[in-house]
């Protein structure tokens, strides 16, 4: 579904991705772990071209999306993105946050968009909050709305950029539960996270990144349970 070949990204003279080759298969849940500054968020943000890669190729659903002339808006609507800081639209109600993009990007009717939005709110467990504004919700609720907002576009894949890092500990579980349910339904997911429990339980594959490279990858039991690379070992020794 998503494939990167020799993906590089520099900010000024500072190269943060030194050539990433990764493949994410349909219906696969891939969790990207690694120390902060290892480039994992940049890698994720390159996948939907929020960051423009400096070199290398990204294929999405068979299409080379780093080619010149590709309509990035058409690509992005097929890839939902969830941010660490939620980034809900503060001037819109919860329902409008979710229904806006389907209406103006997919030209879905208002009624249909709102019906879908309500279904999604039920799914993420906050059906009673549709007319609230984001700032009236807890962090966990806001992040669940953000997931619903991304799902409303009926994307082919979902990208999560440290979705629980800004949450109070007691709210992390409710967000991870929604993500687990999504994984069970077969959504293709790329998750940058420090939640080792989630990785172990839900991931089909774990990518360990360090200093702008994928150092080790494989099933969670192997990468997290029996790491081969010394840098993976050192990192896991600190976080586990």
């Amino acid at each position, binding site marked *: 579904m998503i494939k990167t070949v020799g993906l590089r990204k520099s900010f000024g003279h500072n190269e943060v991705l030194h050539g990433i080759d990764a493949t994410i298969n349909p219906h696969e849940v891939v969790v990207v772990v690694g120390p902060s500054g290892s480039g994992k968020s940049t890698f994720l943000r390159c996948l939907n071209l929020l960051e423009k890669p400096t070199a290398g190729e990204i294929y999405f659903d068979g299409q080379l999306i780093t080619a010149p002339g590709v309509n990035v*808006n058409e690509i*992005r609507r097929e*890839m939902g*993105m969830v*941010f660490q*800081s939620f980034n809900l*639209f503060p*001037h819109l109600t919860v329902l409008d946050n979710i229904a806006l993009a389907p209406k103006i990007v997919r030209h879905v009717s208002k009624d249909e968009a709102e019906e879908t939005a309500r279904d999604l709110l039920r799914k993420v467990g906050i059906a009673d909050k549709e007319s609230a504004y*984001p700032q009236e919700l807890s962090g966990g609720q806001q992040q669940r709305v953000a997931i619903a*907002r991304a799902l409303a576009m009926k994307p082919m894949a979902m990208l999560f950029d440290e979705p629980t890092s800004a949450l109070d500990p007691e709210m992390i579980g409710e967000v991870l539960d929604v993500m687990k349910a999504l994984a069970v339904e077969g959504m293709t997911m790329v998750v940058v996270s420090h939640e080792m429990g989630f990785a172990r339980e839900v991931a089909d594959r774990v990518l360990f990144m360090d200093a702008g490279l994928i150092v080790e990858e494989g099933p969670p039991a192997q990468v997290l349970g029996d790491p081969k690379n010394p840098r993976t070992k050192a990192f896991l020794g600190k976080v586990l």
Partner: protein
Amino acid sequence: MALDFSIIPGIMPALLAGAKMTIELAVISVAIGFVIGSLVGIARVSQNRALRVIAGIYVDFIRGTPLLVQLFLVYFGLPTLIGRPVPPFIAAISAMGINSGAYVAEIVRAGIQSIDRGQTEAARSLGLTSSQTMQYIIFPQAFRRIIPPLGNEFIAMLKDSSLVSVIALEDLLRKGQVVITRTFRPFEVYTVVALIYLVMTFVISKLVSWSERKLKAVGQID
């Protein structure tokens, strides 16, 4: 000569007519300024370099030259170019509207830049184009933040509109001057004129803070 405020009732109708003209001028000018300023303000943060440069030149030119000179350019200068006179009212709202546009543009630019980058990223990652993002996400949020400075701009325009008295437009100040030629009471008349300006600006500043609170109540992070 002793002060004589007994003339006030007799001069009020004329002064209030002038005040009405002053308000009209300010409202229309700021409305024009808002349209120009929104477009130019958005152009100032555009990804298109040419747009940014042109918008920047406009803002610098207008803010770097006196409004009175701009007014003379339109009222006295433009007719020689187009071969027919420009009516005073049209000249006034054109010059003031174009002037206000530059100041509003800076207000709009600052408002847009104050919106968190995550808002743009969230909108773009949902597949919105950059202009849809501006229209549905960024501008509505920026608008709430620019209401107070916009109110200040309106107050400034209301006061600066007194400059149009020099092109014989019957605004509040001009009416005052006319009344003085009849009553020979400049101190009393200018005092009343000043007080009328004060009442107008005071009411507007109250309206602005009221609308600010109102908009804050309707879902707004700050």
